[in-house]
């Protein structure tokens, strides 16, 4: 193995996604929950489906998908993986495959929905 790859591992990548997802969880997810879960159902703001659909199909929709679905999914996956480690469950590759695999499936599905919107 060349010196370039010696000692390298994927943990910084998972941690980077976890950190970015943490910011999104703190900032964008509560905002989305407030708008779609509280203000819109209470009738405080009016949401027009057609306008929303057009907005979702734009780059703003892609950013929404990334910050409210994809990155928080990886944040949750990382936290669950380390929680499992604390409980001495699913050590080794299995927890990595299952946790980040689910986050990847959720992310790809969300991006696919956006792409076909």
């Amino acid at each position, binding site marked *: 193995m060349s010196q*370039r790859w010696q000692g390298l591992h994927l943990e910084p990548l998972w941690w980077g996604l976890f950190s970015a997802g943490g910011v999104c969880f703190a900032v964008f997810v509560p905002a989305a929950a407030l708008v779609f879960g509280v203000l819109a159902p209470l009738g405080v703001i009016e949401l027009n489906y057609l306008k929303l659909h057009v907005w979702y199909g734009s780059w703003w929709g892609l950013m929404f998908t990334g910050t409210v679905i994809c990155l928080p999914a990886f944040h949750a996956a990382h936290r669950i993986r380390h929680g499992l*480690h604390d409980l001495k469950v699913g050590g080794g590759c299995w927890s990595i495959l299952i946790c980040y695999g689910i986050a990847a499936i959720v992310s790809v599905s969300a991006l696919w929905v956006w792409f076909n919107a």
Partner: protein
Amino acid sequence: MHKEIQIKRYLPEEHAEPFWQTFRVPYDETTSVLGALNYIKEELDSTVSFRWSCRMAICGSCGYMVNGIPKLGCKDFVRNYPAALRIEPLAHFTVERDLMVAMDEFLQHLEAVKPYLIAEPSEPHKPHRQTPAQLAKYKQFANCINCGLCYAACPQFGLNPEFVGPGAIALAHRYNLDSRDQGKAKRMPVLNTHDGVWSCTFVGFCSDVCPKGVDPAAAVNQGKVESAKSMLIQMFRGGA
């Protein structure tokens, strides 16, 4: 005033298992946990073993679990415990006898991160100059007294004793941040491993129990940024 103090005894030559022993100790507002232990040793049972030295939170010798929380015996007071007071050896370390633990695991990790200035003096016999701003960058992390309370608090060290751990990483970070030091490249390979900064799950209890306000959790997590940078640089440069 008197207090019932329970001590977890371990006398390997007499009993295979540890056992609890209760002592009745007089105390007042000024009696520290270490003071109570010294009373027990001098007046009640001279066979009780524990480490201590300075009595002023400098030497870091008198770390014990007090009601399950890592504390320095000299900095903690009997008056803080109106109910039960139970003293045990520091968690996650190998117990040698009574409240004395082997610090070897911690010391090996500490040695591995080279916690000293690595620098080629440009002009021999001249002092390394440093501005107050440069000092402020690492000063907080320099307050570590190697007491090991953060290791007793760290659940990840409890699960995996190979984890370099909060204290050693805080000191590695202290020297990496020092403007006089040139040893970062030698320390990063240890910090970059799974057992380096990446074993930390940011529980943060290490910083809660630190008797000197070092905040090792901050050092470890700033260390993750440094480690990620170090690994990226290695990937692009083709070597550390």
